[in-house]
């Protein structure tokens, strides 16, 4: 019952400490880390993909990846930024795989009753904007969503995207033009 005794401590431990312990093979620390960040990962994936089923798949994918990747996290970037990066990559991988398999899968998905009723925010006026943003080319989409939906600074977004602050600004500028054409 050692672990149960430790549980409350784990819940309060900072990310960095949990990461370190998980990297050292501490499964309770890893479990706590996943549990803590699952919702963040899911919500991020949802914003990027717009579909609950996709977001759930991505979130699971990311959790599995963390098991192997946590030991390689070097601590130079904030854990959050790193998690963004892993999640965004997983979203992109999923969408690429989806593209390769053709859209038959999407059609199947659309008849599933579970997602047939419109998602809550679909009713809002932002629906078109979201749809357009999600169709932006990869880096423009990442930049716009990180800065506007996630409220990161251009520098923070650059950290996530692995590019310079100026490059983020440039992507956003390009995205604004693209969006004008789309909307």
């Amino acid at each position: 019952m050692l672990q149960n005794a430790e549980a409350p401590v784990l819940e309060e431990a900072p990310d960095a400490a949990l990461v370190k312990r998980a990297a050292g093979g501490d499964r309770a620390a890893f479990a706590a880390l996943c549990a803590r960040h699952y919702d963040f990962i899911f919500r991020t994936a949802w914003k990027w993909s717009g579909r609950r089923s996709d977001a759930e798949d991505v979130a699971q994918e990311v959790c599995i990846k963390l098991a192997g990747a946590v030991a390689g996290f070097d601590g130079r970037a904030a854990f959050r930024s790193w998690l963004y990066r892993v999640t965004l990559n997983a979203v992109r991988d999923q969408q690429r795989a989806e593209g390769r398999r053709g859209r038959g899968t999407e059609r199947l998905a659309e008849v599933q009753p579970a997602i047939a009723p419109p998602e809550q925010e679909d009713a809002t006026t932002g629906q078109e904007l979201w749809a357009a943003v999600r169709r932006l080319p990869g880096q423009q989409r990442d930049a716009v969503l990180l800065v506007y939906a996630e409220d990161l600074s251009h520098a923070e977004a650059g950290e996530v995207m692995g590019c310079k602050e100026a490059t983020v600004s440039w992507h956003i500028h390009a995205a604004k033009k693209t969006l004008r054409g789309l909307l």
Partner: protein
Amino acid sequence: MSDEIHEDELQALKHVETPAPSAAARRRALAAAMVAFDAEQQKSKTPAKGNGWAARLRSIVPQGNWIMDTRFTYGIGTAAVALLLLPLGYQLYTTTAVTPLSDLPALRPEAVRQAEPPAAPESGAEADFAVAAREESEAAPAPAAPMAAKQAGERLQRAAEAPVRAIPEAADGHDEMLAAESAAAGSADAVAVPVAAPAPQPMLAVPTEPTGDVFTRFDESPVQLVAEAPVSTFSVDVDTASYAYVRRSLHEGQLPAPEAVRIEELVNYFTYDYPQPTAAAVPFQPTMQVMPTPWNADTQLLQIGIKGYAPPVTEARPSNLVFLVDTSGSMDEPDKLPLLKRALGLLVGQLDADDTIAIVAYAGSAGVVLEPTAASDKTRILGALDNLWAGGSTAGAAGIELAYRLAAEQRVEGGINRVILATDGDFNVGIEDPEALESFIADKRDAGIFLSVLGFGQGNLGDDTMQALAQNGNGVAAYIDSFQEARKVLVEQVGGTLETIATDVKIQVEFNPAVVSEYRLVGYETRALNREDFNNDRVDAGDVGAGHTVTALYEIVPVGAAGGLIEPLRYETPAAALPTVGTTDEYGFLKLRYKLPGEEASRLIEAPITRDLAVESLAAAPADARWAAAVAAFGQKLKGSRYAGDLRWDEIRSLAQGARGADENGYRAEFIQLVDAAAALAPHR
């Protein structure tokens, strides 16, 4: 208006309420993470420790092969490992194009979701997740299961189920075989799948995957008694879309759905060396042959081939082409808009200086992309093509009306006036009612502006709509799945694609009851006409482009032969005993009706199908006839036709191999590869 979206509008993105993740999905993900974590720890205890995946992660794009690193090394016996390896191996070596490794992550959640920690959970944290996951999977077998049904994953799963169920047998000797098969898939330890629980799910047949593609269902043409229905009537069909679709499916390691296999389109995909008519006024010359049927020793095969007149280059007529291009978001895939751009680039190279091209986009960036431009201005045309950009909603602009309006403005009397619709199946061109769309196209056809349809991509292809529109527009429907196919349709056979030499081409065969007792038209199910339609010039039928060849096959049962499929009636006088009326020198009589472009009244070509057309053995038949028979046999077997007989794949292959001929473009060699692919996918069919 600024050319940028306003900052404030983007701020709206902040105010979104994301849905809460479902508790079940959360539990599953966390349980899967723990399984992966344990596997990782196991692995790192071994000497060959490596953070290979994590290292790659820093290079931004996670690669598919990380699956190798999170290998499970529980005490699974060799046989069990082999069993788990097999499905992926099966997948890899039955697809002709080996699945890219980066596809693998998509398989992953599926596999893991099925996975439950094989040993008793060791710690509290894991127990919570694991038990929760187990409850979940028992309560609802596939709860919020991957909506984007990961086809590859499912295929893997299905393939996995069969061998897993075979475990008892595997114990006594099959394991060697299975291990060998997995070894065939490549290095045995290169792939490992987490423990797949042998879930008690109904076993599904492996191949035909549900796709989003829509095909018109049809029943095969039945066998007809000559005594009851001596006349067979159909419209010619020069479409080849079905062949390209079948090819793509087989290349991807899947058997196409039976209704996707239209045998006449497979047969007509190939060019046959029929004699060339000499003048535009009589644009067809029928070629006929009777030979033994490869798949039925008791019947004969009647081959009817016609080749359309190909005007010499000097007669080339000016073309007025309007491309109507789908730029909806779904076109943003390598085999869609980019391929379309290259394909149209090819076509531009084929045109003369006095031809004109216009481009209209619909869906997304709708509107006129290129005003009618002389084909000599290639820079401008190619520039406009380059600027086509997929994206945007499918909200229909009045794309089709715009395209036809441009075509009408630019109309060339006596020339080729054609709208070419290029799409991946989104026909939201501005007229929503399909029937209204068809009649709109038919009206324009009557006014001299024709329509061809080029289909791209897979998964959304509205094949039925494509066919219907092209048929109403006096044009072809071609499915372009590769650059090579684009070359075939838009360069080698551009004449046929763009220039119609005869419209409403109908074929009617009247069989002679004194010689033939039964017959069956192979394919053309979707093209059948009523007997009385033949002479009715108002009934629309297929059109033939310059240089097109059309081939039809009838399987016929000679009077008195054993191969009859229909039991003779007890109270009917047997045909053989009837007094013979007329000649026994003819199998039947062929009639062909066509209209020259722009003409209202049809013309007739007639020819008797005489006994001397018959050869005793297949080997004595011309190569083209044997080739057509091989392709038909392939199509029948592929769709599981009840008339396919027991011809084996390798027999079809050698029949085709022997009839390949010069095959300058390699299309026939490619067909032989397709036979091999089908044989590997459906060895027991």
